[in-house]
């Protein structure tokens, strides 16, 4: 089956099979390996991407469901060599340890900021409640998002 959609501002047409998850299509067909698998059931958030402005777990979506949609992955945050303010802020605030949850965290945070540029700390926590992190205890991640808002 042909899947036509927009990924990181680029028009893409790829071949997918009926049961293929969006996660696998992005990783295997487009090489977007920032999209990580951690649980395969939408509980850990490592595979979070932005689809039409909303953060979704790409392991619980079939590739074909993305037909005609606009997808953003972490690879798409960087614009003409400039990192996104969230990326800068994650680095500055020590929000990254092993880094495996980082792309998902960025996607959930970015989706939040698209809808609500001035979220409260509680709203940030809610936005990343589906993103698990075993390394950081979340504090520095939340601080990073708060810092990005201030800037």
């Amino acid at each position, binding site marked *: 089956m042909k899947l036509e959609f927009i990924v990181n501002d680029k028009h893409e047409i790829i071949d997918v*099979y009926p*049961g*293929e998850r969006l996660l*696998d299509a992005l*990783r295997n067909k487009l090489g*977007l*390996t*920032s*999209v*990580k*698998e*951690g*649980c*395969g*059931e939408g*509980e*850990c958030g*490592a595979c979070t991407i932005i689809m039409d402005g909303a953060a979704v777990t790409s392991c619980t979506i079939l590739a074909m469901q993305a037909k005609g949609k606009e997808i953003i*992955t*972490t*690879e798409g*945050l*960087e614009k003409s060599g400039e*990192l996104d303010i969230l*990326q800068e802020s*994650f*680095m*500055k605030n*020590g929000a*990254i*340890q*092993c*880094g*495996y*949850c*980082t*792309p998902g965290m*960025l996607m959930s945070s970015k989706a939040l900021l698209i809808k609500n540029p001035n979220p409260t700390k*509680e709203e*940030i*926590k*809610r936005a*990343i*409640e*589906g*993103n*698990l*992190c*075993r*390394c*950081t*205890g*979340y*504090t*520095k*991640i*939340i601080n990073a998002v708060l810092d990005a808002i201030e800037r």
Partner: protein
Amino acid sequence: MKEKFKYIGKSIRKHDVKEKVTGKIKYAGDMKLGGMLYAKMLLSDAAHANIINIDTSKAEALKGVVKVFTHRDVPKNYYNSHKWYKGVDFPRDELILTEKVRHVGDRVAIVVAKDMETVERALSLIKVEYERLPVITSIEDAMKEGTTYIHGLSNKAFEKTIKCGDSSQILKEAEMVFEDVITTPKQHHAAMETHICVAEQDSFGNITVWSPCQVVFQVQLIIAEALDIPLDNIRVIKTIMGGSFGGKGQPILEPICAFLAMETGKPVQLITDRTQSIIGMRSRNASKICVKTAVDHEGKILARNIDADIDIGAYYTNGSAVPMAMGKKSFRMYKIKDQTFNGRSYFTNTVVGGACRGYGSPQIHAATEINIDNIARGLHMDPAELRLKNFVKPYDKDPTGGPDLGNARVIDCVERGMKVFKWKKKRSKAKAKGRFVRGFGMACAVHGNGYHGAYPDFITMTMRITNDNAVVLKSAIHDQGCGTVTTMKQIVGEVLDIHPDKVIVPQADTAFSPYDSAGTQASRVTFVCGGGAKKTAELAREELIAKSSVILDCKEDNITIKDGFIWNVEDEENKFTFGEMVVKIQNELEEDIEVTHTYKSPANPGVYAVNFVEVEVDRFTGLVKVIDVLAVHDIGQAINRDFVEGQIQGGAHMSIGLALSEEIKIDRMGRVGTLNFSKYHIINAPDMPDVRVELIEEGEALGPFGAKSVGEVCAAATAPAIINAINDALDINITDLPATPERVLKAIREKG
């Protein structure tokens, strides 16, 4: 007087954050080698059974399947994946694939195919016939006479007593003895990256294995033993680590993946999913610990007896090391002249135990610290004050002959914590009468700094200053995401007075890294490997000074090194970068700046953590919310403050889970109920408090720039502090972890 440091203690960014934040960094699961095949295991759904038959015909007939392996196809070399160097041995009871399954999650078959979709389909087509055997799922069942034996003729795998003085007599005669039985659950490491491995064999027959691992030389050794092939034909490369916490310490997939690469002649990527990571890898051992403590009226501990029964699961692995580690900790926090620790390990038909952040510390401190609080309640004393009467002091000796405690600052931690947390004021508040009630608790933990005093603990490192002005520190270090590489860069930068950006620190690769005796284990990296980096850098500095004095034709004393430049103090006009000087040394002297040093760990001091917490308990639902955590750490000296905070906040996360929600649930049939994160609950952002961090930096004489460990001790004190806070809130006595809503409600009901 405190030294002033240029790079030590500074929050310099981790070396690889840009690659991580842009999603470009490649983990083992992102690797693609030409012609690579994919593999996944079929794990047992029976807890204890003989395999009568495995029908793989349908799976093998599937287009794209390369081969299906069962116990009939694999080498029969028993191994123990905990063994980390030649010269130590533990009971060998593991095979790559087994004919007799001993737990749900045991290894039954492997499918290798051209893509993952085919692998999954083929796995579903394998039919296994089992002859079921009786199942043991608890320590109590394992102990029974005449029960089913999982290995050999007893389910008791290990037993050892550690003691000082004679506690039994004092306990018998004492007026006041406080006894508690505390249980702790099996915990899943929950690294976000599941276990994974890639292997390839070249035309010479050499095997290369890429693995997110903790000890490359251990991986190499276990592959050699499991496959009975020469160790030096195996190359192990540590990949970017997507979280380990001890879970990826023992090589599990690596010997299997190496075998598959040899058998197929192709690169193979062996993948696990979350369920397999929970049931088929390793776990924190469950424990049941009975603590009896005799005290006098002033709260002075007179004697203590600890009986610890450990559920190690279906295979031995480190079944002797965990109770030993627990026992040793019991003697290094409080000064107790007469104390006995009895540790026993039992096989059960449950998830296999292994290293897990804290390595026995979370269990033993859960037990002893809950017991201490119950003593304080019994004596109507403040639990912090009671502890202060009993703590070890700096430079005390270990009463069992273990390594000296060094600059042990647990008292400072408690005193600072009481002040910052406003402990006295909070504890003295009257309890709310309504639905929600606040409680306050504290607890302490002690851990070590490596293996000194128990096992070989050394690291060889090589340092070269290049002619392009870089300093290369070659060693078998493994950054687990904690910032090990940058920590080394800061240490080397401080010694050579060059910016850490100029220091290059490649990670472990058995082909090129000098030997390291123990890898990233036992909280040894900063203390031992960091000590090695410091010494090696000092030797490189000496060599640079000696050879530069020849080049500049001056006395060594006249050589000045500052901010990455070197010059003759009498010739300020001619300053050289290290690189420029090395060019001169190479061209004029035909020499080089390269040193190799084997650093033996000089000590193994105690490192201490004290946590103060505030909880809110809902009397209606039994739900507990952690409102505040203050973690005070005796760290000697932080090398990188940001990393230290990261460790402590992450360790608290794991410990809060142990206290409230995390448990691998296994029923009487041995079936696992917590197969994924929908059932196995790790704390998410809304439920996680901001963990406040206070550091006691009094310096440890034998650590690099005074530094001690932090990565494991930080995961031990939060859980008992939370349980103590819950018990404080409701005046109940919860002793089973995790304190789930059901358990909290039950305790409230029982209190009436």
